[in-house]
C-alpha cells in the first residue's frame, strides 16, 4: 500500500504576479483557504498518511501557515533553486523508500482520483485530464492506456488529454532523475519521456476533477467552483434585519450590520465588519479582518485579508489583494478583454474586473477598466480612471 506522497510547492508562479510577490503560488487563497490546503486535504482523504512537501520560494509562508495542520504528518524538504519539477522531486529522495505519489501543490484535485492512482496495480502511472485548451500544458498521447509520448505546450493540435502532473512512481525513479538532470533536463515530464523511450510502460488514468491556476483571473473561476464545496456555518454577530440566502460562512468575531443582503455561496472570514446596508452576491470570498462600509456591492470576487473598502464601492469579478485600502465610490468595470501578461496577449473568454495586488491604497472615486492588473503597494489619487496595467509601487497622480 502506498503511504507517502510528495507535493511540489517550491515554485514562484511568475505569471500570477503581483499576487505571488509575497507568497508562493500554492498559498493563493481560494474560498479563504490556500490552494495547498485543498491538495493536503484530498491527499489525506485518499488514504496517504505522510506528505513530503518540497518548499523553496517564500517557504516561511507555507511552513508558518501549516504549523497547525494536524490531519497528516508533514515533512518539509527545501529546494534552494527552482530549477524544475524533476530537480524538486529529487530533494525528497531520502524520505522515500517505496512507490509513492507525486502531486503539484498548485493544482486542485479530488481525492477519488488520487485513490484510483494509489490502488492502480502498475508501478508507473499518471493521471490525465481532458482539457479544452491543451496547448498550454503537457499533452499526453495515449496508446493502449499507456503513454506513448508527452509533448510540452505543443504548437499544433495533437490531442486533447493533458498531464495533470500527478504520478505514481517507484523509488527507482530517483536514479532516472539523477541521470536526466545530469544531462540538463530538470522537468519531470522529460524524465518520464526518457523512461518511455527506454520501454517503461506508464499507465494512464483519467482524473475526475482537476483545476489549475496559471493566470490571476483563473483565481476568480476556481474560487467560483470551490466555494461551493465549503460547508455552511455562521459565527460572530449578525444584527437584526440582515438577509442571508443560500450557503454562507461567517467567521468568528465578524459583525454583519443591519440591512445587509448576502446571497451564498459566500465565505466571510474572522473579525470582519460588513455594512450596514452592504450587498454581497454569490461566489464571493472575503478574508479575515476585512471591513466593507455601507452601500457597497461585491459579487464573484476574491477579497483577501485586512482589506478596507469604504462606502458605495462596486466590485465585481475582481481580486483585491491583502491589506488594500479602498476609498469610497470605487468602481470596477467588467468585460471580456485582451490582457497583456508576461509579454503575451491573452484573450479572456469570460468577463473580468480588476486584479489588485497587496497593500494598495486607492482614494475616492477611482474607476478601473476591465481586466486591468494593478501591482502591489500602488497609490492611486482621487478621481482617477485606470486604463492600463500599473506595475508595483507606482503612484498614480
Amino acid at each position, binding site marked *: 500500500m502506498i503511504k507517502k506522497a510528495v507535493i511540489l510547492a517550491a515554485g514562484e508562479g511568475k505569471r500570477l504576479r503581483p499576487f505571488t510577490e509575497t507568497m508562493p503560488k500554492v498559498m493563493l487563497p481560494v474560498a479563504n483557504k490556500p490552494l495547498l490546503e485543498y491538495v493536503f486535504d484530498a491527499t489525506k482523504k485518499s488514504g496517504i498518511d505522510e506528505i513530503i512537501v518540497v518548499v523553496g520560494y517564500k517557504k516561511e509562508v507555507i511552513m*508558518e501557515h501549516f504549523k497547525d495542520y494536524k490531519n497528516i504528518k508533514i515533512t518539509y524538504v527545501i529546494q534552494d533553486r527552482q530549477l524544475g519539477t524533476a530537480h524538486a522531486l529529487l530533494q525528497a529522495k531520502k524520505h522515500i523508500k517505496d512507490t509513492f505519489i507525486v502531486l503539484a501543490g498548485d493544482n486542485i484535485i479530488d481525492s477519488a482520483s488520487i485513490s484510483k492512482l494509489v490502488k492502480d496495480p502498475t508501478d508507473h502511472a499518471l493521471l490525465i485530464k481532458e482539457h479544452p485548451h491543451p496547448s498550454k500544458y503537457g499533452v499526453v498521447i495515449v496508446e493502449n492506456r499507456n503513454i506513448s509520448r508527452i509533448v510540452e505546450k505543443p504548437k499544433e493540435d495533437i490531442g486533447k488529454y493533458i498531464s495533470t502532473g500527478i504520478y505514481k512512481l517507484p523509488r527507482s525513479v530517483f536514479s532516472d532523475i539523477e541521470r536526466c538532470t545530469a544531462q540538463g533536463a530538470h522537468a519531470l515530464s522529460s524524465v518520464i519521456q526518457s523512461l518511455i523511450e527506454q520501454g517503461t510502460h506508464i499507465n494512464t488514468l483519467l482524473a475526475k476533477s482537476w483545476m489549475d491556476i496559471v493566470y490571476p483571473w483563473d483565481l476568480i473561476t476556481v474560487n467560483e467552483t470551490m466555494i461551493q464545496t465549503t460547508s455552511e456555518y455562521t459565527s460572530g454577530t449578525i444584527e437584526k434585519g440582515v438577509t442571508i440566502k443560500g450557503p454562507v460562512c461567517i467567521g468568528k468575531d465578524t459583525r454583519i450590520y443591519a440591512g445587509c443582503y448576502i446571497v451564498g455561496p459566500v465565505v466571510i472570514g474572522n*473579525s470582519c465588519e460588513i455594512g450596514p446596508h452592504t450587498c454581497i452576491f454569490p461566489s464571493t470570498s472575503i478574508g479575515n479582518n476585512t*471591513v466593507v462600509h455601507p452601500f457597497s456591492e461585491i459579487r464573484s470576487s476574491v477579497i483577501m485579508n*485586512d482589506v478596507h473598502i469604504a462606502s458605495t464601492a462596486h466590485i465585481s469579478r475582481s481580486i483585491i489583494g491583502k491589506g488594500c485600502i479602498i476609498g469610497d465610490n470605487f468602481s470596477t468595470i467588467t468585460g471580456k478583454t485582451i490582457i497583456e501578461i508576461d509579454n503575451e496577449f491573452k484573450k479572456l473568454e469570460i468577463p473580468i474586473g480588476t486584479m489588485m495586488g497587496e497593500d494598495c491604497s486607492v482614494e475616492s472615486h477611482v474607476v478601473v477598466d476591465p481586466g486591468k492588473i494593478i501591482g502591489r503597494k500602488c497609490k492611486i489619487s482621487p478621481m482617477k480612471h485606470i486604463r492600463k496595467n500599473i506595475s508595483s509601487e507606482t503612484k498614480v497622480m
Partner: protein
Amino acid sequence: MCGIIGYVGFREARTVLLESLKRLDYRGYDSAGVAIIDKHLKTYKEVGEIANVEKKIPLLKGTTGIGHTRWATHGAVTKENAHPHLSCDKKIAIVHNGIIENYTALKEELKKKGHRFLSQTDSEVIVHLIDDVYKGNLEDALIAAIKKIKGSYAIVAVSQDEPGKIIGARNESPLVIGVGDSENFIASDITAFLKYTNRVMFLNDGELCVITTDSIQVLDRNKNHIKKKEELITWDVTDAEKSGFPHFMLKEIYDQPETVHHVLRGRISEMEEKITFPDPVEKLLKAELNSIHIVACGTSFYAGFVGKYLIEQLTNIPVFVEPASEYRYFGSRNETSLIIAITQSGETADTLAALREARLSGSKTLVITNIIGSTATRIADGYILQQSGPEIGVAATKTFTSQIMVLFLLALKIAIYQKKLGSNELYNYLLHLKYLPRHVRDVLERSDEIIAVASHLKDATSVFFIGRGINYPLSLEGALKLKEISYIHAEGFAAGELKHGPFALLTKDTPVVAIVTQDETYEKILANIGEIKARGSPVIAIAEDKDTEIENHADYVLRFPTSPHLLPCIPITVVLQLLAYHVADLRKCPIDKPRNLAKSVTVE
C-alpha cells in the same frame, strides 16, 4: 529560568523527561539532570547541554521519574549543584525552583543531626528535611518539610520505596499538572508536556499534589482534599517551531503583523467606534481614577513606560511606571489608584509580589499577560490577554508590541470613559490602529536597508539610542534589545538629557541611533543630532517616510511609514528589533539563547 518536569505512567520515563527538558530549554539553563526509578533510584546530571545528560543515561525501562534544568542562583554551576538532589541513603530525590530564605539555619540544624550535604545549593536542604521525617509516606514527609521552609518553591519529589508516585508542592513558583490517560505529568511550564497532553490543572500557592499513573490528588497543608478543575490549553508545541526562519527571534519579529492584529480582534469595532474589554476590566476603568501605577520588569517595564506616554497624552491622568522589584517595597499606594502589572509569563516573581502588595493595600489591580490561567491572572481584579502566542526567543519582541497595543487600547478606553476624545479623533485612532499591521509589514520588507546599517554597528563597542516623548522609552527598549543579544554595550537616553552627562562618552566610534518623528519635538531632536554630529559620532536616524529633511542631518536613515501621532511606536519598535537582530546575526551571537539570560524570571 529553572525548569521542572515529573512523569509517572506507562512510557519510558527516560524518553519523556529528556523530551520535556528540551521543550523547556528556551528558558535558559546551565546544567540539567534526571532521576528515574528503575528498581532503584538512579540519578544522572551534567553541566551544560541536556545532550550531555542524554549521553550518560543507559536505556532504563523505569516509568517514574523527575527532571530539572538549572539556572544558577545559589552556588556555582557544577555537577554537584545540579538537580535532582538526593537524600543520604539515595532513596529520595527532589527537584526545586525558587529560593529557600532560611536555608543556612536549616542546613546547620540538619548537619548536626548527621545529614551530609554534597552541594552549595539551598535546594538540598529540602531533600534532607524530607529524609529526616520520612516513614514510608512521601506526602506526609513533604508536608512536614515545607512547614519548616521559608521562601518560594516549586518542589517535585520521588521515593524509591514508593515507585509510581510523584509528590509536588508549590509556593510562589509555578507548578502545573498535566492530565493524561494512564499517565500524568507535573511541570513548571505547560510547554514541557504539551506534546503529550493539553489537559492541565493549575496548583495554587500552598497546595500539594500526589500523582500516580491513574490518580491526581490535590491537598492543602493540613491534608484536606481540594477539588480542581481540568482546563484545556489550545496551544500546541508545533506552534513553537521556527517555520523556516533561522532563529525564533526572527520568526517572532515576522509574526508581528499577525500578533498586533490579534490584540484588536474582537475588541474594536470600527463602525460602532467602540472598544470592548471583559466586564471586570471595564469595571476597573469606569471607576474613579486619580492615578495609575504601572509595575513590571525588563522589556515589560519599557512597554509600561510607553504606556505612560500613551495614557498621559490621551487622558491626562498621571501615570507612574515602577520596576516591580522596587514598587513592592517602596511604592506609594492608595485606593483610587489603579495598578497595572505587565508580565508576559504571568509568573514573574517580582511582579507577582508587587501585585500582592497592591492588593493588600486596597488598590485596584489589572494584569496584562500572555498566559491564561497564570498566577497573575488569578491574583488581580481583572486581566487582559495580549494574545501573542508562545514566545521562545529569550529577547522579547512580539510580546512587547502586543503589550503596547493593549496599553493603547486601554488608554483610548479610559479616554472614552473620561470623555477626553471626540468621535472624529477616536475614529481616526481606531482606523489607524487597524492599519498598523500593514505598517509593520512595510518595515519587515525593508530589512535589507536595516542589514546595511547593521553592518556599520557590528564592530562598535558602545551604541547610544536617543528619543524624545514616547520615543524615549522606545530608545531604552532599542538599547536593551541590542545589548541582550549582540553583547554590545548600549544605552538609551532622553535626547534632551544627553548633554547633561552622557555627552562625555561620545567619540567618533560611538554610533548614536536617533528616533525622529515629525511632531512637536522634531526641531529639538534635529538640534540634538547636530550637537552629536559636532562631536564626530555617526548618527543613524529612524525617521518617517515623509521626512525629507532628515537626510541632511543624519549619516544613515532607516524609514517607517508615516502615521498620526503616537501610532508610529509600533513600526519604530520593529525597526529597532530588526536592527538588534541583524547586528547580533552579523556578530554570530547565539540569538535565541543569550548568555546568562532566562525567559521568565521566577526568582526575585
